[in-house]
């Protein structure tokens, strides 16, 4: 087995896997290195939302490009990911949150997304199980869901079919930068060499940035999620409280999946997101408040996965500003799953010296040379202890 490659990708999450797929299909010799198993962290453990509503306006080009790939996932990958175009609803129960909802709706529309606004009786008719009065909701029919647990392995299989090589259980312990290439050492393989290195190490990407002199204020966290036992199928769209304290969807086999803020920091070993019982209970309480009909339902499983967050809640995608041949793709900040196909394709094009169809400059790692303004989304979605880190 050759240890010389065209591109070495560090991190078998969805960013790294899609990048590897598109590079392998362009004929590049790709090595995808994963410390554990592919898709084990947030790429595999997220809510599965392919959400278009409520994204920041500069993210829409990437997000809409990605949605095209999700809509054609079977054709692109050669197998399914339980993609379901189920639509998505934001609801607001206060005047302040109604304003935010309408603002999201108008910026979504400006970017070409179809949005319906429901008020009063229409909300009641559509979501009769939701408690509260004076509710406003926005509905986006193009939003969808997929099963994250099966998605990354499927993309990686497609990559290996295209000639890319996967190395699981392979932790990077050192990167040496030569004149024209990087040499990556691992405890279990001969050193691997390539002129191009992609840092897709998710919650751990910061170490690599630091080594190459472009530190980023990355921290790792994971949203706690939980699932009920199966119940009769009644809820098609995913429903998000715009305040963020409850996100809910029902799988076609009947389980309800919940997620909610505040997000949870990763625990000390950094490899697992510890879901403190209080987070689970807070989430359960929010569900019981918004949907009293769930009070007697039982939660059967709770989980989370490590993902990287950046303070402006935008990922870092594109060429390094310090080191030729180094590229970054990390910091999904809770929205990485949906954009991953476009991240992979754009980065692969850039690595191949072609122009990406989407302008990646908003995602440049160079933005961290000056201090970046923390987004209000960050403030909302993390508890104070987390955001002070």
């Amino acid at each position, binding site marked *: 087995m050759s240890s010389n490659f065209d591109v070495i990708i560090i991190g078998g999450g969805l960013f790294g896997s899609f990048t590897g797929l598109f590079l392998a299909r362009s004929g590049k010799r790709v090595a995808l290195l994963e410390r554990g*198993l*592919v898709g*084990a962290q947030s790429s*595999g453990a997220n809510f599965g939302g392919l959400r278009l509503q409520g994204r920041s306006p500069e993210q829409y080009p990437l997000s809409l490009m990605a949605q095209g790939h999700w809509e054609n996932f079977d054709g692109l990958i050669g197998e399914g990911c339980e993609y379901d175009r189920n639509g998505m609803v934001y609801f607001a129960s206060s005047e302040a949150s109604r304003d935010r909802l309408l603002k999201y709706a108008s910026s979504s529309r400006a970017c070409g997304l179809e949005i319906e606004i429901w008020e009063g009786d229409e909300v009641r008719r559509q979501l009769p199980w939701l408690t509260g009065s004076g509710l406003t909701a926005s509905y986006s029919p193009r939003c969808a869901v997929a099963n994250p*647990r*099966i998605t990354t*392995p499927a993309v*990686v*299989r497609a990559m*290996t079919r295209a000639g890319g090589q*996967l190395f*699981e*259980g392979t932790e990077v312990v050192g990167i040496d930068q030569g004149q024209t290439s990087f040499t990556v050492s691992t405890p279990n393989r001969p050193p691997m060499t390539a002129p191009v290195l992609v840092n897709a190490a998710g919650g751990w990407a910061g170490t690599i940035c630091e080594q190459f002199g472009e530190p980023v204020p990355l921290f790792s966290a994971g949203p706690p999620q939980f699932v*009920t*036992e199966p119940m009769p199928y009644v809820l098609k769209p995913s429903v998000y409280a715009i305040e963020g304290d409850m996100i809910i969807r029902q799988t076609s086999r009947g389980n309800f999946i919940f997620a909610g803020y505040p997000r949870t920091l990763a625990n000390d070993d950094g490899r697992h997101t*510890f*879901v*403190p*019982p*209080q987070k*689970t*209970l*807070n989430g*359960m*309480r*929010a*569900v*019981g408040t918004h949907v009293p009909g*769930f*009070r*007697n*339902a*039982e*939660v*059967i*499983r*709770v*989980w989370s996965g490590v993902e990287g967050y950046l303070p402006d809640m935008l990922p870092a995608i594109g060429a390094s500003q310090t080191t030729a041949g180094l590229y970054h793709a990390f910091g999904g900040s809770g929205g990485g799953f949906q954009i991953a196909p476009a991240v992979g394709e754009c980065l692969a094009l850039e690595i191949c010296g072609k122009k990406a169809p989407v302008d990646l400059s908003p995602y440049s790692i160079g933005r961290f040379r000056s201090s970046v303004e923390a987004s209000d989304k960050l403030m909302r979605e993390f508890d104070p202890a987390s955001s002070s880190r």
Partner: protein
Amino acid sequence: MNSALPPVIIGAGPAGLACAKALVEAGLRPIVFEETSRPGGQGTRRLSAAMSSEAIRFMGRRAAAATAAREADEDRVLAACDWRPGTLVWGIFGNHLEIVREGRHDSIPYNQLVIATGATDRIMALPGWTLPGVFSLGGAQVALKNHTSFIGKRIVMAGASPLLYLAAAQYVRMGARDITIVDTARPAGKRRAAFGMAMTSPKTLLEGLQLLLELRRHRIRRINGATLVRAVGAERVEALDIRHPDGTLETISCDALAFGYGLRPETQLAELAGADFRFDETLRNWFPLVDADGRAGPRLWLAGDSSLTGGRVAAAQSGRLAALSMIASQGSEVSDAAEVRSLRGSVARLRRFQAHMAGAFPWPHEAAGDLPADTIVCRCERVTAGEIRDAIRKVAGPAEVNRVKAITRCGMGRCQGRYCGQTLQELTAATCERPVADVGRLRAQAPVRPIPIAASDNDGHQP
């Protein structure tokens, strides 16, 4: 660390109760959590009110008297404890237990914890095992002891387990007559194991042989060395198909089937409390790592069948050992070093007996490889053997049971893999032709049992 906190015991079976007794004798007042409403555990589960008048018939005069005395003693011990029946411990985080009692959540700090959560039947999936009318052998006993009910009128008890004969004898004593025993263990294996069993605990072996004689007296049909092929039925189980050692097939008509293959430890809480695990080649399963006194960590002790299968007597002795070790770890003088030595020896001997017994009643691991594709392995999520094999063949890297779980949902349902996990391990190993020790074991996650959403209402914390 707050040493003023009382010791906490999870599980009021023989191990937990013996541990509580030793702690009470030392002047402590342990908290005792029990998931069900009554003490006793599984093998020594207390009879329901309706059954208790039948105690002599159920277990014989001498055993009934001994049981009544033991239960009275247990009640005296529990009266001196902080006794909290009907409490689900659903998670352990740091030094707190997360519990639900009477529908409400609470968080209980601990300094010393004993987990004595026992064991349940070890199940290998069988075509048709999810039909109504199919029980585990332990489940058949619960039906009788707890609900004063047989599982059916024409019953087959099958598998390879000492519970096979005990459950059958209990049913016969209570008047069941139409029972067929299908023991899948080979007589040759039993003969080989008998010597080791006789050497380690002749008394336990003798009790087993007496059960066989009792069943023979009642002319209960017993088939040896057969293989279970499938449970058959349209709406519920109507028959069990078996293959005799000479290859002939037989359909045994029945309206209820109980089956199982020995015991599987309940280890989720031990794992959440930080225990490490080891693979036991003889029992072909994973067990928590403990020292001779059941200690598994600075604040953690494991007792009874949840740490290593040993049976009722070993469970009680290991519970007492754990208590003595806890007291010693707090700096108190150990009451009696000779007692500790004797208990350690006895527990080790009884657990060796169980290891020999595993030879007499072997776990049919090879059956997993032969499961038909449409057999349900995970009954909670309805995942079939065929779906699991497809997923294993498709995975990008080496097959590992937690990844197979992630892809197929096998083990993700309300039992959290407690009933399908053993089959999943063997099926994964057989499909990728690797040793079962190399394909991992399902990781435990809180909540270990389902928790109601409304339990979050009154937990004394603000969001």
